[in-house]
């Protein structure tokens, strides 16, 4: 499987590492080459220092042939842009965006993007620990209930759909670094 990971923070690096060691062809992208120091020195994938929200960069990273795409930078909006490029421009079937603001995460889930919200997951886990009833929607990846948006040309939207679950279970919430800066 060909996988692209945007954002080489702790989550991005950890995921890229595991996927690459499991035999997948992984390209991890980050704007900051320092971020790649989070990868093991014998990381068996590709590291690309570039802006993962740029269409040309994604093409260079092999987005045309990619099967799965994760946008895991520190910026919710960058993740949302990269993920929509991946699904709408490149037609990648399995796309997940990390969106830490719960309101935005929910909004984009309704729009059809698969999102993972660290905030909601952590709050839920800790609330469960404190003996409160869990929020079943908080665990794992929230998947689209409906098509991404209205297609102006009436065609069927490609990309993340509820039936594409791809066996992705809950990811334990960890803080991420990488793509330093704005948010």
């Amino acid at each position, binding site marked *: 499987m060909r996988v692209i990971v945007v954002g080489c923070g702790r989550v991005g690096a950890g995921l890229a590492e595991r996927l690459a060691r499991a035999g997948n062809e992984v390209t991890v992208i980050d704007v900051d080459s320092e971020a790649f120091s989070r990868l093991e020195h014998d990381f068996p994938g590709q590291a690309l220092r570039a802006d993962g929200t740029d269409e040309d960069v994604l093409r260079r990273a092999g987005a045309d042939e990619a099967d799965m795409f994760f946008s895991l930078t520190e910026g919710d909006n960058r993740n949302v*842009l990269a993920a929509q490029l991946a699904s709408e421009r490149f037609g990648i079937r399995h796309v997940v965006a990390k969106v830490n603001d719960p309101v*935005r995460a929910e*909004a*984009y889930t309704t*729009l059809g993007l698969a999102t993972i919200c660290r905030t909601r997951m952590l709050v839920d886990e800790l609330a469960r620990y404190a003996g409160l009833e869990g929020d079943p929607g908080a665990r794992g990846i929230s998947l689209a209930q409906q098509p991404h948006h209205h297609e102006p040309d009436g065609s069927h939207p490609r990309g993340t759909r509820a039936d594409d679950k791809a066996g992705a279970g809950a990811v334990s919430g960890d803080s991420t670094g990488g793509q330093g800066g704005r948010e």
Partner: protein
Amino acid sequence: MYIIVVGGGRVGYYLTKELLEAGHELVVLEKNERRARQIADELGSIVLARDGCEGKHLAEAGANRAAIVAAVTGDDEDNLVVCQMAKHHFEVPRTIARVNNPKNEGLFRHLGVDEVISPTRMALAAIEQDIPVHELLHLANLEGGELELLEAQIGEDSPAVGRRPSDIPLPEGCTLFVLIRNDGAYAIRPETVFQVGDKVLAISRTECAVDLRRELIGETTGAEVTSLTR
């Protein structure tokens, strides 16, 4: 008309100033507090020091009664999120986004942003009218970007040389309408025969510009037309 401007940088500032002078009711969302205060000092209490990417702040700004939301921050991703939230959460009739990367233009439109403004593309188009490196010049957007007005220069390598319009397999939704030859402009007729040095004005669906280029200019240079037409 009630307008929300997101981003109080230079573009947001001058936009707000002009709109106020034109008598519109508006509010500016600028997440940097210092910058927000600066604008408020100059233009009055029309500024909220809030991040317009967040739904609750858009709600606070009255997005549900806004006729227009204009996202003009310096970051494409922020402008996209503002417009998508405005469109899908608050059903704002008209959303406008500034984009820096001209390649995002098509994507933003596809994702439902009503009007996409690319200063980069405008500057590029202005420059290329003087230096036609791409040979296929973008002159204007029509129909909100669905169509574009293009000028093609017929060179020696053009497959159109010596042919009539009916001999040229044009993509659907694309019309050649004016010929510029020896500093005169002529309507293109069925009997027109294209020559080296001609300029042809065409209106094309945006996605067909590449086909148009192939038929009128040829597949010679490595220069891409896409930077202009997407």
